[in-house]
């Protein structure tokens, strides 16, 4: 997903991927990593308190079937649960990507050559509106996603009988591959081919089960009835939200999901980073989900050192280059751009919040192998030479970016400046953040080069290569492969690796093969990766920072405790 203010992106799980992951585990901090300034092992406080005030970024939707923003997903982890969920533990001290049984009693019985998953619902579960949770609600949730043309419907393309729904989503009425029995409480899902990341698919909000009575349209006034420890009592888009305890949540009814410390959570939403930080510094709010404004970072760091936490999220910021258009169809030009970027300067633009990289995969992945030496050290002269040799000097280039996020705009201005220095004729095309990724994903835009980023949906390289750099997943609209990267040998390698059986999914040789794809992309100068992102969490003096649990991509606000 994208975490930029206005838009997020779905991953497209291409049909034919066949990688089964039973539990992403193994060594320390695989997958989503996080850091805590004080390591929090041992028991966390479960002392309850009446109110928690938070300030939050704005988001796209508050409907689990539609939203694709971190801002919403951070709330959904305690309100809308699916059959399974990713553990709510700190990534540093535990396995935060471990799949745990949620509404289901187990993480699924997998049979039929990893093509059939069977779940049994826990007994006696109810939604916040009092309705009992039924097995058929799961099917209704998926059908509802199709009816609303949710950005998540791409995840379901491997389910048997999904064809009619994919062809005509608004008219989707049934999915033959999902069989449920309300009396026995069982849900059986049949896939066409094995799929490694299917358990993860069942852990993301698009499959969080909502009542069958939920209308088949964007429901946020109020949002749909919840099945987690909290429910969203009210949501005022871009203004505010309120979470209250779910009256029908029995204590510890799902092991591993916290019962929640605050009774009520009041959220103020704003995109004004300076204001958000100031509200928290003044104590009016207790937690700032927004990133701290980079220009005031030194001030906040020196004044509130113990109240700020920095996180490395599995994310990469990069420039895409469209290989179907001049001049980026030429390898020398793409290499030149890589030589022309001084990654340190781009880190400076973000106030220092970033770690330079020239790999595509983020460093926390076991499949990551740092490409040494740096294949494209900053060298303007070399870049100019390459442009000259390519014969593309003087080509007009439009650099696209998000205009209303100042640091994204500055980043693109920097790129434009460098492209001009090496002999291209670059102009800037800033667009509103709300439309940006949709427009980039439309081939008709003919965007040559532009700003983009990627935050993992789940910790496996299929979420990166097969989604973003795969020739088999190039689409005319809603394309994720902005560069239209298609290297036949690598396409084949990606598909093969995705089709490995689970026992080999994380073996050293598999990891090495993924790293080889990473290197091949760098050799092809397919993109210009420049940094891995750092996010911040800012707490007021009221909260005990030691309680903070950063699981996979976000703080779990249900576990916040007061001093």
């Amino acid at each position: 997903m994208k975490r930029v203010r206005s838009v997020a992106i779905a991953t497209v799980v291409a049909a034919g991927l066949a990688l089964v992951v039973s539990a992403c585990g193994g060594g320390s901090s695989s997958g989503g990593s996080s850091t805590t300034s004080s390591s929090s092992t041992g028991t966390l406080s479960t002392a309850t308190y009446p109110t928690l005030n938070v300030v939050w970024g704005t988001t796209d939707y508050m409907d689990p079937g539609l939203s694709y923003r971190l801002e919403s997903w951070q709330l959904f982890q305690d309100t809308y649960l699916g059959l399974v969920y990713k553990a709510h533990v700190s990534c540093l001290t535990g396995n935060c990507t471990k799949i745990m049984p949620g509404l289901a009693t187990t993480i699924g019985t997998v049979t039929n050559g990893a093509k059939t998953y069977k779940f049994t619902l826990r007994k006696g579960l109810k939604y916040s509106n009092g309705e009992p949770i039924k097995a058929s609600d799961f099917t209704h949730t998926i059908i509802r996603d199709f009816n609303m043309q949710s950005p998540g419907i791409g995840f379901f393309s491997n389910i048997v009988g999904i064809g009619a729904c994919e062809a005509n989503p608004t008219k989707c009425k049934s999915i033959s591959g999902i069989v449920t029995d309300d009396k026995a409480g069982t849900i059986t899902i049949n896939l066409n081919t094995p799929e490694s990341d299917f358990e993860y698919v069942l852990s993301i909000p698009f499959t969080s089960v909502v009542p069958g009575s939920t209308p088949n349209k964007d429901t946020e006034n109020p949002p749909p009835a919840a099945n987690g420890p909290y429910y969203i009592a009210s949501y005022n888009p871009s203004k505010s939200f309120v979470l209250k305890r779910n009256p029908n949540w029995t204590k510890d009814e799902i092991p591993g999901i916290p019962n929640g410390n605050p009774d009520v959570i009041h959220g103020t939403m704003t995109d004004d980073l300076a204001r958000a930080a100031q509200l928290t510094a003044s104590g009016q709010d207790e937690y700032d989900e927004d990133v701290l404004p980079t220009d005031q970072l030194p001030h906040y760091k020196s004044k509130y050192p113990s109240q700020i936490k920095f996180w490395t999220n599995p994310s990469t910021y990069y420039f895409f280059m469209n290989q179907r258009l001049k001049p980026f169809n030429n390898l020398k030009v793409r290499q030149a751009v890589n030589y022309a970027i001084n990654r340190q300067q781009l880190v400076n633009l973000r106030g220092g919040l970033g770690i330079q990289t020239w790999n595509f995969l983020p460093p926390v992945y076991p499949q990551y192998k740092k490409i040494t030496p740096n294949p494209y050290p900053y060298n303007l002269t070399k870049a100019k030479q390459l442009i000259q040799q390519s014969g593309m000097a003087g080509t007009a280039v439009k650099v696209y970016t998000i205009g209303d996020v100042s640091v994204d705009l500055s980043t693109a201005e920097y790129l434009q400046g460098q492209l001009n220095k090496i002999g291209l004729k670059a102009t800037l095309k800033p667009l509103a953040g709300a439309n940006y990724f949709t427009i980039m994903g439309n081939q008709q835009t003919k965007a040559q080069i532009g700003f983009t980023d990627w935050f993992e949906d789940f910790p496996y390289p299929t979420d990166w290569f097969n989604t973003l750099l795969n020739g088999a997943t190039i689409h005319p609209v809603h394309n994720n492969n902005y560069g239209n990267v298609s290297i036949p040998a690598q396409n084949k390698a990606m598909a093969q690796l995705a089709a490995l059986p689970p026992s080999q999914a994380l073996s050293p040789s598999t990891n090495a093969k993924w790293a080889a794809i990473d290197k091949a992309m760098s050799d092809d100068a397919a993109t210009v990766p420049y940094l891995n992102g750092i996010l911040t969490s800012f707490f007021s003096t009221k909260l005990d920072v030691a309680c903070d649990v950063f699981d996979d991509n976000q703080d779990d606000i249900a576990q916040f405790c007061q001093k």
Partner: protein
Amino acid sequence: MGAFIVRRLFGMILVLVAVSLIVYFIFIVIPGGNPAIRIAGRTATQANIRSIEVTLGLNHHGFFGFLWQWWDMMKALFTGSLVSYYDGTNVVQQIKEGIPVTFSLAIGAGIIWMGFGIIVGTISAIKAGQVSDRVITALALIGISLPVAWLGLLFRYFLAGEKGWPAIFPDGGYVPLTTNPAQWFYHMILPWFTLAILFIGFYGRVLRSNILDTINEDFVRTAKAKGLTSGRILRKHVLRASLIPIVTLFGLDFAAVLGGGAIITEVVYSLPGVGFYAARSISQQDLPPLMGVTLFGAMFIVVFTLIVDIAYAYLDPRIRLS
């Protein structure tokens, strides 16, 4: 008189219709994607986009198609069912929620600029030609020369803690009157003055010149001859006569502020009013809220202009016949 009003009303409705057509036309010109694509999300297929287009009525083409879409949008607006392209929220609802904020800003600023404007104008008129008059004139001129955005940032920088000095006022944001009147007032002070300063200068000068003109009128000379004191003349005769044009000016300016003049102030101080909503919608190229906000603003301006016109026609029969 009645015919005059009817004619003006008719003209007013025509103007509003034309305004809405123009807004719609302007945004058809905006490229950068079919709104249907934006709503469909990232994994939607071509078929999905088409079905959304039908739902939104965007599948009509050509000149009559354009009119048809516009009519659909107008209908939705007036029945309160118009929703944003971007986040599906109800436009009329969002405007309603922004109204208290914008009204708080406009009314508070209006009271300040009228109050100070009258004081400033009267003093500089009484002391016409003297140093204090010159000083006030200079300050007034400075007031109308300041860009609102810069003034707002200056206040925030020096008075609201941006410089690192202790904050005397909060750095933007809005607290509803019903939640906490004291905080509401405290948060509004800087925005009020930011908006009012340029008007104070202008109104002061207009009032000053009106008073000076009026003082030369016959009826004032008569009053003086009758033996009335200057103070009494000023209060009972001159001020009243000079204020009439001011009040009408105020009506028009107030309408302009409600109609979008507050947008920069709201953006600088993050006040979630109608102007802020408009600014956000514009950067998102979101047509329905823009249509709603523009018509809302145009309506105020047109209605106030109409009231002013009627008032003048009532006072000056010549205008009725024009």
